[in-house]
């Protein structure tokens, strides 16, 4: 099963606004881009159109790993607002 399909099983209520903000300039200069490999939801990728690192915040599992793994501190991460984000039914 693909990771996108796994995320689709989760109960998630999406916020209109992203709770993850990337510092585009820093990301553009970043050679490692650990975020792309370490995010358990595989939500980071390089946009085919713009070549920028982008994040699909909607599937976020709220682990915060990206903000810890970003050694350049380019990920501003906060919890989604109350009522939003993933709602674990097993946990």
């Amino acid at each position, binding site marked *: *099963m693909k*990771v996108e399909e*796994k*995320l689709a*099983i*989760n109960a998630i209520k999406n916020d209109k606004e992203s709770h993850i903000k990337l510092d585009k300039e820093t990301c553009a200069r970043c050679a*490692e881009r*650990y975020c792309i*490999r*370490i*995010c*358990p*939801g*595989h939500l980071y990728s390089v946009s085919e159109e713009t070549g920028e690192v982008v994040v699909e915040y909607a599937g976020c*599992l*709220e*682990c*915060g*790993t990206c*903000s*810890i*793994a970003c*050694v350049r501190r380019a990920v501003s991460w*906060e*919890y*989604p*607002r*109350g*009522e939003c*984000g*993933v*709602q*674990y*039914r*097993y*946990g």
Partner: protein
Amino acid sequence: MAEDKMDAVIVGGGLAGLCAAYRLLEAGRQVILLERGDTCGSKNVTGGRIYVGPLRKYVPAILEEAPFERPVVKEIVTLLDESSSVQAEYVNDRWKQPPYMSYTVLRAVFDNWLSEKVMEKGGFVIPKRRVDGLLFEDGRVAGVKVGNEEIPANMVIAADGALSFMAEKVGLRKPLAPADYAVAVKEVYRLEAGRIEERFGLEEGQGAAGLFAGSVTKGMFGGGFLYTNRESVSAGIVVGIGAFLEHAGDAEMHRLMDGFTARPEVARYLRGGELKEYAAHIISEAGYGGLARLYTGGMLVAGDAAGLALNMGLTVRGMDFAVASGVIAAEAADEALSKGDFSAETLSVYEKRLKESFVLKDMETFRHSGEVLERPRFLGVYPHFLCELFEALFTIGEGPKGSLYCSARKIAGRYILNWQGLKDFLALRRM
């Protein structure tokens, strides 16, 4: 104005926060608990299992009726290289009788139940509220902010989990560093109770825990796990974030998870199960040296928020520390409320009590376990050594077989009977 204030506001409806609330309510205090999820537990993830032995004196009433999944009566340890594995099971007749030492647990179920207990005692548990900031008065914490709303309180207990933004806001938590955290990914598969018992070799209602080490994390610090719930099995992997960044390969976390459940040693337990959830969470691996400062004027930090988690290799702990630290924080807060003194000096009793309890005693005893377990050879070399050793011992080929001793000696010489192996052995004394 003191009379307009709540006695205590608790940030976070996990085990630490809920147990703190419960204890404060027992002491007759007024408590508001704010939880950002739809219900308590809906943002929480465990592997997982909780060790209850140390908790009996802290929360006896709760343990009696708690909705645990299964008591763990069997430990399965598997060391793997890329294509073979060595597995050991530990069972003990005494473990099959109550009082049980540990239980598997699902947090969405467990924490929600506990929040009902808190409400029955008269506590206000308010879900769907993200705490955005703290209120200050005379240089000390004096409540919380939720959006535009202010909730003044004499005491704040920050139990907001491993990322603790509350502790960060007052400079109690160190900045999040890759070396101090691991990422865990978990899948829950629905399976009938009877099938679980048959596959794991369990009697009705009893449970097992599985630990997998070696190539499932490509030798990176971490491992895989399996826990039997009542009608589901939790499977997952944990990898040190620092180790991941240092690893030379092109590992991807979600693919490591796929690789784990695809291993026949794991797949045999999950076959036919329906995937019900895909979860991730971080775990503090910083140990005793990486603890947050535990208090400041008007505020105490408990559970994961304080970095109270311990990896002892074969056992991993955190939920027991969360429960006990929540209770101890509540007792310290209750004393401060009685005195009407919320200074850091008065609240320092919290740290003192934690040091006298199993929580900080165990974390102190195992203060070196992180550096020992993170030695790259433990997971990178030893699983390979054992797999190759067993291969040599069991193999009968076409030609004449070498003596067992010679084969074993040769393999041991390659992997462990060397200077590095001696250093690893000596390192073990630090645990």
